[in-house]
C-alpha cells in the first residue's frame, strides 16, 4: 500500500511540473475589451498565441445567467488582427446596477483548444421592479389592491359582526331569565 502511495505522489509531482512546461510553448489567450459607441456598443475579443494575433478563429460570446451561460448572437471569426467584434445588444436584463458578466470563448479549436475570458460591464438593462411599491397582488401588505382590501374587510366584518350579534343574544337570554326571577 505504501509503495502505491509513493507512485501516486510521484505522478502528481510530475504532472504538476509538466503542465506549465507544455503551456509555455503555446500561450494562447483571449483579451476582452468593451467599446462604448454612440448608439451601438461593441465587444471585442482579441485572440493571441504567444503574443501573436491569431486569425480565423471562431469566438463565441456569452452572458452569465443564473444557471448557465446565454449565447449572445452567433460565433464571429477573428480578422487579420485577431479580433472578433460583437455588436452588444442593449436589452439584456441585468440586476439593479445593470452589471453583466460577459464571457468570450474559443471552444474545441484544433490548435488552441478551449480558451475563455470574462469581464464585467454595465451594459445590461437594469430590472427595476416597483411591484412592492404599487398596489398589486405582489405588493406589500399596505399596498394590497383596493378591491381586495375592501371586499375582504366587508366579508370579515360582516361575518364577525353576525357572530358578535349572536353572542349578544345569549346575554339577552340570560337577561330574560333574571327578569322573570324578579317577578
Amino acid at each position, binding site marked *: 500500500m505504501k509503495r502505491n502511495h509513493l507512485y501516486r505522489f510521484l505522478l502528481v509531482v510530475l504532472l504538476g511540473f509538466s503542465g506549465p512546461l507544455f503551456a509555455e510553448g503555446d500561450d494562447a489567450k483571449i483579451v476582452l475589451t468593451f467599446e462604448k459607441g454612440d448608439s451601438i456598443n461593441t465587444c471585442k475579443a482579441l485572440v493571441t498565441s504567444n503574443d501573436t494575433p491569431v486569425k480565423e478563429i471562431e469566438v463565441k460570446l456569452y452572458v452569465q445567467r443564473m444557471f448557465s451561460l446565454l449565447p449572445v448572437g452567433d460565433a464571429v471569426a477573428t480578422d487579420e488582427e485577431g479580433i472578433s467584434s460583437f455588436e452588444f445588444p442593449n436589452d439584456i436584463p441585468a440586476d439593479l446596477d445593470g452589471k453583466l458578466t460577459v464571457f468570450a470563448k474559443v471552444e474545441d479549436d484544433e490548435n488552441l483548444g478551449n480558451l475563455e475570458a470574462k469581464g464585467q460591464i454595465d451594459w445590461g438593462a437594469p430590472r427595476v421592479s416597483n411591484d412592492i411599491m404599487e398596489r398589486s*397582488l*405582489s*405588493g*406589500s*401588505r399596505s399596498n*394590497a*389592491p383596493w378591491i*381586495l*382590501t375592501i371586499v*375582504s374587510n366587508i366579508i*370579515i366584518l360582516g*361575518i*364577525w359582526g*353576525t*357572530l358578535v*350579534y*349572536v*353572542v349578544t*343574544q*345569549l*346575554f*339577552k*337570554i*340570560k337577561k*330574560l*331569565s*333574571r327578569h*322573570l*326571577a324578579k317577578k
Partner: protein
Amino acid sequence: MSEHKINTEPTTYETFTQEEYMVMKDELLRPVQHIGKWGKVWIGFLVAVCMCGIYAYYIQETKSKYVTVALRDYTMWGVYISNFVFFVALSLIGVLMSAVLKLTNFEWYRPLSRIAEVIAVAAIMLAGVSIVAAMGRPDRLHFLFLHGRIQSPIVWDIIVIMTYIATSMILLFIPLIPSLSTCKNHLHNKPKWQMKMYAWMSFGWEGTAEQWKILKRSIRILTIMVIPLGVSIHTVTAWLFATTLRAEWDSTNFGAYFVSGAFLLGVAGMIVAVFVIRKSYNLENYLTPMHFDKLGRALVLMSFIYIYFNINEYLVPAYKMSGLHANHLLDLFTGEDSTLYWSVVFFGMFVPAIFPLFKPMRKPLPLTIIAVVVVIAAWFKRYLIVIPGLSHPYLPIQDVPDSWRHYSPSLVEMTIVAATFAAMMLIVTLFSRFFPIISVWEVAEGKLEGKDEIINYK
C-alpha cells in the same frame, strides 16, 4: 318539575309530554351520568397517545428538523400538510350533517347534528395544530397577524379557519343551552364544579317562549352562515395548492374537487361516529338502522359527485399528457405511487359508490366497515394530492442526495399525526362524557313534529 312551570306568558307553545321526555332524558344523559371502566381505559389510552405526540413535537422542535423530520427541499410539505387537509375536510361534516339537513328539513338530522358539530369543532382545531406542527418556525406564528399580507392565500386560510372555529363553537354551544339546563336539573352525584359549570353555561335558561324564540333565531342565523363558511374554508385550502406554481396543482377544478371530497369524508366519518356512539352508549333507540340507511344513500351520492370531480381532475390532463403533468400522472397511474393511487380509487370511490347501493350493505355493521375503509382511503387521498407531485418540480432535480428524491415520513412525524387523531377522538369522547352527545330537545321536538309545539322542560 310541574311546580316550576314558568311558561306563563300567553303563547302558542305548549309543554312537552313529560313522561315521554323523562325516559328520553334518562337514556340520553346516561353517558354523562356514569363512566364505566372501559370508558376510562379508552380516555387513558387517548391521553397516552396525545402525550407521545407532545413528546415527539418537543423532540422535533429541540433537535434539528433535518434529523427528526423527513421533509427536504423538494418534498417540503409532508404528512402534516396532508393531515391538515384531511382534518379541514372532516370539519365540513358539521356543514353537511347538521346545517344542510336542518335547512332542507330532513328530520332525521336531529340526533346527528350535535355529533357532527362536535366532530367539526375537534377536526378544525386539529387542522390548526397540524399546520403549526408543519411550521419551520412556529415561534413566528404571530408574524402572520402582524405582517401577513391579505394578498396571500395563507392569510385567507388563517382568517377563514379562525372564523370557522368560532362559528362552529358557537353553533355547538347555542343548541346545547337547553341541554345544559337539563344536565343541571337532572344529573346527580357529580362534582360540585361540574354542576356549577352547567349552571353557569346554561345562561339562566328557563325555556320561556321568548328564550326559545331567541335561541331558535340564533341557531338559524348560524346554520345559514356556516354553509358558505364551510365551503370557503375548504376552497381556500384548495387554493393554497392551486395558487402555488406546481404542475400537479395547476387546476381550476381544485376548490370543487376538495369540497366534494370533504362531503364524502364527512358522510363516512359520520357513519363511523354514529356506529361507535350507538354501540358504546347503547343509544340504539335514537341512532337507528334508518339513519344508517339514509347515510348509506348519502354516501353513494357523495361518491358519485366525487368521482365526477376526479375524472375532471385526472382524465382531462391525462388526455393531453403534457410535460410535467405527464411525469406526475404517470407516477400515479403506472409508476412509483400507482399501488396507493389505484387502492384509493377503489376503496375511496368505487366501494362507497357501488356497495351501499344494495340494501344489506346499508345495515349498521357492513356500512360502518365500508365507511372505515373510505376514511382510511380519504387520508391517503390527501397524501397523494400533497406529496408525490412535489418530486416533479419545474426546475429538474439534479445532484441531490437520494433522500431528497423520495419522501417517507419519519417516526416523529407519524407520532404527531397519530396524536392529532387521538386528540380529535379525545375531544369528542370528553365532550360526550360531560354533555349529552345527542340533543335531547331536538330529538324531543322531532317527536312533536307537525303539532306546532315546543318542549318546555327543565
